[in-house]
């Protein structure tokens, strides 16, 4: 697939930046004319992935989180990268209702929502090195508009 457009953004692992990340990715993905539901799905997935990085990757809120977004004809690919602690047990982390944080009221539904709101989800992680989450969302509405391209 030929990439139509791409962007990369790095910001600090502060929780107030999660909203910013949703807006930026949503705005960029809008170039593909997604439906409101597709856009909401993208924003929700991004919110979960960036929140995970902001809460779990680093000891403080001074770590870097990098988002890359690639637009293709029929889908968008979003990559969220941190170089923090990494996920100790990925299978456990992906279990619904599991959270490694016991202090706050955490639902442990982050990965579940990411899976349900995206068309494919790929996670690579290494202890002490960091985590990369790759989200793909198909944009069906785009193919309905243009025939020959």
């Amino acid at each position, binding site marked *: 697939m030929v990439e139509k457009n791409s962007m990369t953004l790095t910001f600090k692992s502060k929780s107030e930046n999660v909203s910013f990340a949703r807006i930026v990715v949503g705005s960029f993905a809008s170039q593909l004319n997604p439906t409101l539901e597709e856009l909401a799905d993208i924003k929700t997935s991004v919110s979960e992935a960036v929140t995970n990085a902001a809460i779990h990757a680093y000891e403080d809120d001074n770590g870097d989180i990098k988002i890359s977004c690639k637009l293709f004809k029929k889908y968008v690919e979003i990559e969220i990268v941190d170089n923090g602690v990494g996920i100790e047990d990925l299978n456990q982390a992906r279990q619904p209702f599991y959270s490694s944080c016991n202090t706050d009221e955490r*639902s442990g*539904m982050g990965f579940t929502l990411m899976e349900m709101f995206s068309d494919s989800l790929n996670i690579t992680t290494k202890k002490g090195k960091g985590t990369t989450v790759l989200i793909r969302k198909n944009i069906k509405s785009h193919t309905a508009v243009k025939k020959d391209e």
Partner: protein
Amino acid sequence: MNLNYKNEKGITVIEFCGELDNHTANLTKKDLDMIMEKSQSTNYIFDLSKLKFMDSSGIGILLGRYRTIKNNGGNLFVRNLNPQIDKVFRVSGLYQVLIKMDKN
């Protein structure tokens, strides 16, 4: 995230205004607890018509309040969810415990 509350036929209605994510969750939790402590209602309605977005951080907050309300013998109702929030509720199973009211 701002909260407004009022009494509606003996039930406390709490209106959520803004977005409910990790950043706003802690303050929202404190404000909710304060309102619930003050109003001492058994049943609650959370009106989400002005809530623009919610992710899994919101699920945790709502479930926490639900437990408190349930322990006091009450029910937690929700109304006016936008499509994004409705989808989060459906996917997470929140509708198993929170009761959806018809649109008003």
